[in-house]
């Protein structure tokens, strides 16, 4: 019964193993590059890298910190997620469980098109159309929620973190919708029938069978979207009117994000300036890793309840 392994198996094994190792090597190389260049800059830095509200790596003494960038990146991405995740899940549910088949297909196609729009186009549209149009919403938010401080608006141009968040929401909506749609489509018929046979309405079927089954898929999709929002560069750089301070009122212009800051400063930066920007890029890299790790933890913690072992 002994036989030589077939060449096809060996080649496939080699390819698969090679690809797996390749990914790890690339990740390690990126991390090593970022860490090496970043450490040079941080060695020159006279100020606290994490808490300083300033970006002046060429000054004497050199002082720069990522506080403003971290705040801007996280806040704009959170706004984007808060808007995009519920809307995306809603669209995906509508396509898979409510819309007539043809209408659902059309909507899915249009969403696919949205995913293909380059971010520079979103940026142009954002600065030329969205920013001027935000005034009405801003006024309303200022009137009704201005007392919170978060939505306090001084009537300047809407080139703020909030507008960036709205634009990012539109940009990540297609990817979240597409992934959740695929997950919802894979809900086993028998889970839905289980709910139906108990006398569940359509919404109750969604709540009892579809959403629990799709839960880890929704989280994964959101993380994909969040990854894009955290790293989005051009659209943010075009819409945001940057400044190096933290403004808790999200409607006022100012602030910055990691990617936007790197893009707008990199070309004119001195070598030390570039290393400083790379140090900020390293922080973005770490944030992305942490976000993904957290998502995996959430999924793993409820694994025994997941639809996968049905």
């Amino acid at each position, binding site marked *: 019964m002994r036989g030589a392994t077939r060449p096809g198996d060996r080649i496939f094994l080699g390819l698969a193993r090679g690809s797996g190792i390749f990914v790890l090597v690339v990740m390690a190389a990126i991390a090593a590059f970022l860490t090496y260049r970043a450490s040079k800059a941080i060695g020159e830095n006279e100020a606290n890298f994490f808490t300083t509200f300033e970006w002046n790596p060429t000054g004497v003494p050199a002082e720069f910190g990522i506080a403003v960038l971290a705040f801007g990146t996280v806040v704009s991405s959170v706004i984007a997620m808060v808007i995009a995740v519920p809307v995306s899940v809603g669209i995906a549910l509508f396509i898979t469980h409510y819309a007539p088949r043809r209408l659902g297909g059309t909507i899915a196609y249009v969403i696919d098109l949205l995913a293909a729009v380059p971010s520079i186009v979103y940026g142009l549209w954002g600065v030329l159309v969205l920013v001027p149009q935000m005034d009405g919403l801003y006024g309303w938010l200022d009137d009704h929620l201005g007392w919170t401080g978060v939505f306090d608006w001084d009537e300047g141009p809407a080139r703020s973190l909030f507008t960036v968040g709205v634009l990012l929401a539109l940009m990540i909506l297609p990817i979240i919708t597409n992934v959740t749609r695929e997950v919802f489509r894979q809900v086993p018929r028998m*889970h839905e029938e*289980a*709910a*139906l*046979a108990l006398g569940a309405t359509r919404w109750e079927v969604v709540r009892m069978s579809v959403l*629990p089954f799709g839960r880890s898929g929704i989280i994964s999709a959101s993380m994909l979207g969040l990854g894009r929002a955290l790293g989005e560069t051009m659209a943010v750089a075009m819409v945001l009117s940057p400044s190096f301070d933290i403004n808790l009122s999200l409607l006022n212009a100012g602030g910055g994000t990691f990617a936007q800051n790197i893009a707008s400063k990199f070309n004119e930066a001195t070598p030390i300036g570039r290393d400083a920007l790379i140090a900020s890029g390293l922080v973005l890299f770490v944030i992305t890793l942490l976000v993904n790790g957290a998502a995996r933890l959430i999924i793993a913690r409820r694994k*025994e309840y997941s639809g996968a072992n049905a």
Partner: protein
Amino acid sequence: MAKRIDVSGLNAYYGSFLAIEDISMTVEPRSVTAFIGPSGCGKSTFLRTLNRMHEVTPGGRVDGKVMLDDENLYGAGIDPVAVRREVGMVFQRPNPFPTMSVYDNVAAGLRLNGKYKKSELDDIVEKSLRGANLWNEVKDRLNKPGSGLSGGQQQRLCIARAIAVEPNVLLMDEPCSALDPISTLAIEDLIGELKERFTIVIVTHNMQQAARVSDRTAFFNLAAVGRPGKLIEIDDTERIFSNPSVQATEDYISGRFG
């Protein structure tokens, strides 16, 4: 409250395809009626018309009358969701909600129907699990996922879930076909107990099972593939298996079929 089912002139379609034609029968309360017949003869389709699950399939529609005591399930203004709360169903493959615990699975139907106090819910869950002969096996793991049970236990969990809402009728679509013989026996014993309280209709491919569990047996057949399935005859189980009045039934149960 077990109720009588009275079907008359029922046709069911998938799109323009007539799947079952002109079916009329009566199912007595607190009895077990078995549907037998070759694959594709429409017995499962017919079963699914009895709780309006057929129309959930895209293109599925029904005409005819299904009376549950004195109410027509297909009457004007009848809500299919309400029908399914009266007529419970157990499927071929055990389908507990995978994300829910054993307890929550049993309570799922109750929570749809309204608000219960925790203590009431506890009582009904225990009673239903006892009713499904599952209580002793799961009482220490009520908060563990239902999908962690064995196949036979999962199916009894599904039965507990179905009877927790006290339906008038319990439909079973080949409930044992995915189970081993011991689990099958457990379910068959259970059916014998449940018929004290419910009207039970069971579809089965296993003729010994039909002979063991049912009081009445209905034989379905179709003239050819692509033709609608029809009810050939329904009679006391003993008579169907000893001296059926139609030759096709005798051929089928004695294995001289097809």
